[in-house]
């Protein structure tokens, strides 16, 4: 009798699996669309185990089958799954749907703004934070820090100074990051003084000096040696064989190419160094904006 019942269930299962519902999914796949409460706990289960791909498949189904089941908790897990999968655009869009009054509201605002800042959509990040009024003093401080960091990403030093005035230094979770942002501001001001034309002039006077000025000392010394080696050989050719000799013409041409190229390269070196500097500082700023989020919402 038991075996008969089992066979019956087996056959029923296979038959049902071949049916397809209106959404194109096998009808019985609806089994995993349980009541909202259970779904949120299942989403949490997937989230805790970092099964983000499964979590997003689940939320996709729920969106198709039961749009009414979309709760702030649902959006929170979906948004954070996108975030951890580095799909930051989707993360920001999903987290924006969580209302401020929800328990997930603060986390959604801060992670959403950070995602937008990471994508260099700084205006959107700023407006996300500006529209949010945190009730907790810690969240207010984190918001200030994020706004200050976004201002630094934009190189808007006035906006940074305005945000910096509200730094308290009283929260352990963000005090180090507040100090770091101040040091990045000073580094940005220092870096701005480097001028490409100055590097070119310096390299014209002493080959390689412009690259040292651009803070590329290794390249500067290498350029100096290239010019020295070819210049000395050109001089030797000129002294021994005269200005019409092949030796002088070859080494003289090589020297001219290296000398002119070094002047040109020095001007570029300042710009390249500036770009490298900006990339590095931006990376550090984003890192320092991210750390408090991980600490506060552990």
């Amino acid at each position, binding site marked *: 009798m038991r075996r008969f019942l089992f066979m019956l269930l*087996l056959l029923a*299962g296979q038959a049902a699996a071949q049916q397809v519902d209106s959404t194109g*999914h096998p009808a019985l*796949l609806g089994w*995993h669309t349980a009541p909202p409460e259970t779904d949120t706990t299942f989403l949490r289960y997937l989230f805790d185990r970092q099964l983000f791909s499964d979590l997003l498949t689940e939320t996709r189904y729920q969106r198709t089958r039961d749009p009414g089941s979309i709760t702030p908790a649902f959006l929170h897990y979906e948004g954070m799954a996108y975030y951890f999968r580095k799909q930051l655009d989707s993360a920001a869009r999903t987290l924006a749907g969580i209302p401020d009054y929800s328990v997930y509201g603060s986390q959604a605002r801060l992670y959403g703004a950070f995602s937008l800042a990471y994508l260099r959509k700084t205006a959107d990040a700023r407006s996300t934070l500006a529209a949010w009024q945190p009730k907790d003093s810690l969240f207010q401080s984190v918001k200030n820090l994020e706004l200050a960091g976004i201002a630094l990403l934009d190189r808007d030093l006035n906006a940074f100074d305005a945000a910096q005035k509200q730094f308290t230094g009283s929260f352990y979770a963000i005090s180090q990051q507040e100090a770091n942002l101040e040091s990045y501001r000073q580094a940005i001001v220092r870096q701005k003084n480097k001028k490409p034309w100055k590097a070119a002039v310096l390299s014209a006077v002493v080959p390689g000096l412009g690259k040292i000025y651009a803070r590329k000392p290794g390249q500067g010394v290498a350029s100096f040696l290239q010019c020295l080696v070819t210049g000395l*050989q050109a001089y*030797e050719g000129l002294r*021994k064989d005269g200005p019409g000799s092949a030796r002088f013409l070859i*080494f003289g041409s090589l020297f001219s190419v290296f000398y002119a190229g070094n002047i040109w390269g020095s001007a570029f070196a300042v710009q390249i160094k500036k770009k490298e500097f900006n990339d590095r500082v931006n990376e550090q700023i984003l890192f320092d904006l991210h750390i408090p989020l991980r600490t506060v919402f552990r």
Partner: protein
Amino acid sequence: MSRFCLTCIFLCVLFSADAQNARWQEAALGYERGAYLAEKHGDPGVARDMLFRKHQVLKSAGQWNEAYQTIKRIPVEETGPDSVQFAIRYEKALMAYLNGVYDDAYLQIGQCRYSVKDSILTSRLDWLEILTLCELERWPEAQAKASAYLLSRRLPDQSKEWFRRIPRKRSERKAEYLSAFFPGVGLMYAGSLREGITSTVLQAGCLAFGVFTILDGYYLSGFLTGGGLFQAFYFGGINRSARIAAETNRKNKNTFNRSIRGRVLETERSSTKKEP
């Protein structure tokens, strides 16, 4: 509880059908939900079964990394039946091998042999152990295993023939020393005859240019151009010989292991066919 188990079995059928329809992701999610429900109802046996099936779905989809991560989540009960222990440990070892984590594959094989007492079951690990030992460059042990493996399947012992050309490892340091004392020879030793000859000719040419230019009285050109180019090729040759040696070792290892893999899998396939 039995009703719950029966429901799970019923769902397995559904998701197996789903997997057959190549809807891997959905099937994997279904099994994950099964594992979640089983865990919630305090039934670790069913949870383990669900995760095992999820792993199989992911394996069928060729998502080996995900399959490996899933099978790693399944705890093995030392007191459980041999067949269950073997199935899990075998898959753990296989997935580790397919993901290139050979140390873990070997560890899993060792643990399986230790905890599963049924020698008929553990003999199914032989082929995997041979391949894993080859990847770990433990070829003499792999040869001994291959010999035992062939004899256990009542096949002529061809292990000596299989392992006749175990790759000779070229020392990177030796290649560097050779290049330092005999320019170009290190590259030849490392396995690139053409590059070795080219390097020798270039270095000799630069040195000759430098010497003759100095003899002609052009000291700066001799030292700076001849000497400069010579030192560039000389030190470049030393660095290159170490890199070529490493590359040759990797290529030889892959070629040899590929041939062993082909032979072992062919033997495994033919011996499996013969079994009733």
